[in-house]
């Protein structure tokens, strides 16, 4: 009897445990993998989530979230123009001064009014000498930031700067009082940043995901989605599976290495646009044998750029005759002049192994040499490019050995300490739509983007003169083309190709006007749904 009771009790316990387990599983599995997603919610996979939502620590695609919360004074539009946003009007008392008058009645999401002091404080976060800002290099050209009254801010530059208008359009405005109260904690998950924008930070997991919710007190038109979730997938397969499962409505700036996979997904459509980023081969001109122009030219002629572009990117990249895309240059200069110059650049980059051998014979290393080429694990295309290049370079006696480094190690070896052997391949992104952006950042002596340590006084002077011209002066393009021609003659870098930028959204959804600078616009208003 006792035995039977014990057995019954044991069975009852087992049954209870099994039922509990089933109930737990059922609860866990209740609903769909996409949860109870409202049609007013938008869920996107984005390339990066910051460690901190601080305007100093957001650039490039991270601005997509930041600028929806912390609006800029002036806003970048899809057509490339810059229009007043928090500023009601802007005037130029001189070539180096900008005077902004603030729009009246603008409030932060905590209800406090926006003042000129907030604007000054927001900019000084970037211009301070020890600022950790990603944009510090742009703000370093600012001489002073002055306020007058509650609604006027005057910024004086050290010299004219055609990129300054974009710097203003990329810099979100924060609340001084909120920073005074919370100090360095602002932007952390516990102390979310506040702004005047259509959204407010609701939830933030550093380097992982962010949720924005529509700000109820926003002054303007309410945004189309009540909630935006932006997640970062660190694994390629996870990115695809998340789209397939319906958890995300799309992926913005999709990794190039995964475009094939995304194109095969049912229920998603892709959009593409030319990118203002280009792959290049850098020669450290302060290191032998790359201090020899004949070596640099030999390598230039021994790179089959067309085969590289097709092999590594399929049809997803265009050959780059120089470091600035022709369309960007033609948009601000004389199209015929630009076209002619670009044809000349392309002609100098022909794949010709005989010409390469002839150049190498004239060099100090006529029999070739061996060099270690660093590549970063963060960009798998680099390794593919170097390994493909190595096959042709071996034919003229140059041996490339790939060395894989993490991103910081690569940065140290190529940009900061120049500890690599002298040959490297990288991709450099444009920070603003102005054509000077990439040339200035990659050809100016002392700047880290100048991986070649290039220093040509004529080029330096042309770039400096460009800066002094008004943005509507077409002669500045002539100067820039001259600088690029000299750079090509010196074979300082080998421009390879400009990849495209991609977005994939659920069928029926479109990001209108998607281009390389979509994140600087108020992009959320441009997402349309056909159904």
């Amino acid at each position: 009897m006792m035995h039977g009771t014990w057995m019954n009790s044991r069975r009852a316990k087992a049954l209870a445990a099994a039922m509990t387990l089933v109930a737990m599983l059922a609860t866990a599995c209740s609903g769909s993998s996409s949860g109870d997603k409202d049609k007013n919610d938008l869920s996107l996979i984005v390339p990066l989530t910051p460690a901190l939502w601080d305007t100093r620590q957001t650039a490039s695609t991270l601005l997509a979230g930041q600028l929806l919360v912390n609006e800029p004074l002036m806003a970048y539009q899809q057509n490339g123009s810059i229009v007043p946003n928090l500023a009601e009007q802007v005037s130029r008392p001189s070539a180096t001064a900008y005077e902004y008058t603030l729009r009246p009645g603008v409030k932060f999401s905590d209800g406090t009014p926006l003042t000129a002091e907030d604007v000054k404080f927001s900019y000084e976060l970037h211009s301070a000498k020890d600022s950790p800002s990603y944009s510090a290099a742009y703000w370093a050209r600012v001489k002073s930031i002055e306020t007058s009254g509650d609604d006027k801010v005057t910024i004086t530059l050290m010299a004219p700067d055609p990129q300054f208008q974009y710097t203003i359009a990329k810099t979100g405005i924060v609340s001084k009082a909120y920073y005074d109260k919370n100090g360095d904690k602002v932007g952390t998950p516990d102390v979310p940043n506040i702004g005047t924008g259509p959204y407010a930070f609701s939830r933030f997991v550093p380097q992982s995901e962010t949720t924005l919710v529509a700000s109820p007190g926003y002054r303007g038109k309410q945004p189309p989605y009540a909630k935006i979730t932006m997640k970062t997938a660190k694994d390629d397969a996870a990115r695809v599976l998340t789209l397939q499962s319906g958890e995300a409505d799309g992926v913005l700036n999709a990794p190039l290495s995964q475009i094939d996979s995304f194109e095969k997904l049912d229920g998603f459509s892709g959009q593409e646009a030319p990118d203002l980023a280009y792959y290049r081969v850098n020669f450290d001109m302060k290191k032998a044998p790359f201090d020899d122009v004949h070596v640099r030219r030999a390598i230039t002629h021994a790179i089959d750029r067309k085969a590289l572009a097709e092999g590594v990117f399929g049809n997803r990249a265009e050959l780059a005759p120089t470091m600035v895309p022709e369309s960007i240059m033609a948009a601000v200069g004389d199209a015929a002049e630009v076209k002619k110059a670009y044809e000349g650049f392309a002609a100098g980059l022909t794949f010709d192994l005989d010409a390469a051998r002839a150049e190498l014979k004239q060099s100090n290393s006529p029999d070739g040499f061996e060099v270690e080429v660093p590549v970063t694990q963060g960009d798998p295309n680099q390794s593919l490019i170097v390994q493909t290049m190595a096959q042709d370079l071996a034919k003229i006696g140059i041996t490339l050995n790939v060395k894989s480094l993490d991103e910081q190690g690569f940065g140290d070896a190529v940009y900061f300490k120049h500890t690599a052997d002298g040959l490297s391949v990288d991709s450099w992104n444009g920070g603003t739509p102005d054509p000077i952006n990439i040339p200035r950042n990659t050809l100016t002596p002392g700047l880290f983007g100048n991986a070649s340590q290039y220093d040509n006084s004529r080029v330096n002077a042309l770039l400096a003169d460009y800066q002094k011209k008004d943005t509507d002066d077409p002669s500045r393009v002539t100067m820039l083309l001259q600088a690029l021609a000299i750079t090509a003659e010196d074979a300082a870098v080998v421009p390879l190709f400009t990849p495209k930028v991609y977005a994939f959204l659920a069928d029926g959804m479109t990001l209108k006007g998607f281009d390389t600078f979509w994140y600087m616009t108020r992009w959320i208003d441009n997402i349309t749904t056909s159904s």
Partner: protein
Amino acid sequence: MTVQLVEPDTPARPKLPPLVRMIVRRLLSASVVLLIVTVVVFAFIHAAPGGPEQAIAGREATPEQLEAIREANHLNDPLWQQYARYAVSLAHLDLGTSYTRNEPVATSIATAAGVTLPLLLATWVLSTILGAMLGLFTARRQGSRADRAVVGFTVVGASSPVFATGILVSYIFGVRLGWLPTLGVGDGGLDTVRHLALPVLTTTVVLLASTTRFARVRFGQVLDEDQVTFARARGLSSQYIVRTIVLKNSAVQMITLAGAVLVAMTGGLVVVEQVYGLPGIGTLLITGITMRDIPIVQGVTLVVAVLVVLINLVVDVLCFVVDPRLRKGLETEA
């Protein structure tokens, strides 16, 4: 004449119980191990190329900006001074402030542990209990179809890399069946439980391979012993034999296995966290290394080291508690 020296009576010092002495000894040696860990990690992170200032300021940083960031974080000081500063703050139980997150490292770790600990504990409990159950089941049916099926499953589980299992599990339950989410940690509460379900399942499938095989072997050994044969000959029930002979005689090995699994998981959940986009301890460490966030790397490695030491200590203590032979050995040593 012989003088006999008489030693003065000294009060006998009260002797600590052997188990307590063992714990004290282990804690002392553990503190030395942890000290070595801090030195080694400090040396490695500073020897790695690239500094945190590059990660903080980005590729368009100015040289002046980088220098200012280095100065602000005392990165230009001699290494021994930096280590001394770190050691002093550790002595005050302060793990420092993250360079990239602007929050105390302890806060970052606590937040990440909120993701990793439930994942770790759920996986650990499931893999050890299910492993023991399957091990016992197969040990009692060695050579049968069921045994071969379970062993086959464990071979597949053991042979598959974690990320491959993760992708398969995500595809089945996230994409095909659409039951569970495949990315992120959710909004807390039940949503987080749903988000952790697939990572737990993935890790459990992988770990079941080793726990089941280990348990099968150990239970099989005990089942082959004479005492089991005699017990059966005396007509004792199978359940009695399992409870009083098999489980008791396998307890030390199973506790050791459970400890080993927990230790392995403490550092081994990185891949699962990456596959499922979970902001746990592993992800925190990886991003800390990538961003050269020295305080984060030092803090996470130290906490993981402390956990490993504590787990091993608890395992040893439990083994002494359940096995009188080990206690006897300890008393003899004393």
